[in-house]
């Protein structure tokens, strides 16, 4: 690479090269943010459940007998 | 054991004969759309024929899959069957019944479609029709076997009609490739033994793996 101009335009293929890298960035960043938000919302949910009065919690637990356990 | 199960399947199917006829009707109607959409000229139709007939056969097999499993699962008789005999033999009986009642009729009906699609255009005999039937004889059982795995997996799922198609169609691609190209090779007056042999190999591989996988899947769906 000899100049910034060449770096940006990549010969005459700037659109192709940059769109590839940009799409990769968008998709991977999307996964990163999505997974982070998923964990965060689960954490909040668990916090809310912990705050709820204990009587309600046991009731909810009884209702949700998960077959996976 | 498998024979008893098979007899039961056939007996159940006899009560639901119209459900069995619908996929066959679909097979014919879909193929007859192509002359309207493309062109009624014989050379064009002949070129399209292998692909069109094979795709239609594949879709008809997928459509017919549901009735061999769905009602048995819903009324609980599948659970009883699995209590009485091994899951693999239940799967084998269902696959056999599916082929006998859908695959075999498709093979028998295919000469009619060969006529509609002008498959023997420009050749004196009807050798291409025989090749088409042969490719379907070797290919449709594999479609049944793979379809059984997909159907057994989706039995307990909440949405299933199209789900099974999504799961199974990618796995059907190799069969479609070699099934259609057997007929194409015949149309181009080339040797088609290799393609038939590969279809046969797919069938053998599927016979080894699919009944077991389908049995496991049935067990998961019910258990």
């Amino acid at each position, binding site marked *: 690479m000899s100049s910034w101009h060449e770096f940006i335009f990549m010969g005459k293929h700037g659109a192709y090269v940059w769109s590839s890298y940009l799409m*990769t960035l968008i998709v991977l960043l999307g996964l990163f943010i999505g997974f982070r938000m998923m964990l965060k919302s689960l954490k909040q949910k668990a916090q809310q459940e912990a705050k709820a009065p204990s009587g309600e919690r046991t009731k909810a637990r009884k209702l949700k007998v998960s077959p996976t356990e | 054991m498998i024979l008893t199960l098979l007899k039961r399947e056939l007996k159940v199917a006899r009560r639901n004969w119209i459900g069995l006829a619908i996929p066959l009707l679909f097979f014919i109607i879909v193929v007859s759309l192509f002359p309207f959409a493309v062109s009624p000229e014989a050379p064009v139709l002949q070129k399209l024929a292998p692909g069109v007939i094979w795709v239609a056969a594949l879709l008809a097999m997928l459509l017919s899959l549901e009735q061999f499993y769905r009602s048995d699962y819903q009324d609980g008789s599948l659970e009883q069957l699995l209590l009485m005999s091994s899951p693999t033999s239940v799967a084998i009986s269902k696959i056999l019944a599916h082929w006998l009642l859908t695959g075999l009729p498709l093979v028998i009906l295919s000469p009619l479609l060969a006529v509609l699609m002008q498959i023997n255009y420009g050749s004196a005999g009807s050798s291409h029709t025989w090749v088409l039937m042969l490719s379907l004889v070797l290919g449709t059982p594999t479609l049944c076997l793979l379809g059984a795995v997909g159907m057994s997996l989706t039995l307990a799922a909440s949405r299933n009609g199209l789900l099974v198609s999504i799961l199974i169609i990618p796995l059907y691609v190799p069969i479609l490739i070699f099934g259609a190209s057997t007929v194409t090779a015949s149309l181009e007056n080339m040797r088609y033994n290799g393609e038939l042999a590969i279809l046969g190999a797919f069938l053998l591989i599927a016979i080894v793996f699919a009944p077991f996988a389908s049995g496991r899947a049935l067990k998961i769906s019910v258990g």
Partner: protein
Amino acid sequence: MANAWRWFHQLGSPKYLFQKTGQWLPWIWGATLILLAVGLYYSLWASPIEVRQGQGHTVRIMYVHVPAAALSMIAYIAMAIAATVGLVWKMKMAFAAVRSIAPVGAAMTFLALFTGSVWGKPTWGTWWEWDARMTSELLLLFLYLGYIALHASFSDRSKADKAGAILAIVGVINIPIIYLSVKWWNTLHQGYSVTEEGALDPAFQTPLFLMLGAMYLLFAALVIMRLRAEIILRNQKARWVTEWATGQSTERGDA
């Protein structure tokens, strides 16, 4: 050996796995970012253009395309291995891993297709070619989406896990068959493959290997992130999850 076996069993415990991955994750991210920075520097700046085939700067697309394509295959194989572990040893965390690999693998497959298509336009003059590799990659994407759709269609998670595991194993048996069939079909219709690769010039190897390493690590990091969310999702009622969420526990598994 006995130690390794015990460790393997410990990984089956959601709490242990969550804590361990929480400890690993910062290190993996750190290594990823370093490799990625160096790799991007080489792939976008400090590497020559392709002259022999006249690709020019488009050769730089290879540095994201090849890692994505490689990972799309490896991810599916990893899914099938985890699925087998889950079915044979009845290990629930293996099923969680299968479910966590699927979206990242699907994303890699999509990226391989997208960058391949963008690369194809200037080199072959077309966005899409029914080339053996691209077609197999497309079918692989369908397999990933099929798994995700199947898993999402069950109300009972353990059924979804087992059905999905069987699908992953059936799929992995089929991948070579699909690939060889498509390759045969492609040579029949075109007689050549557009993605035939010659020996790679050493000048292109440095950025490629750097990017391969970076993308592998990035993949691992994303899968672990998804896995951690999946573990919490599956153990919402466990006491250690409540402790983790409210920060009562001394150990912080957060990263």
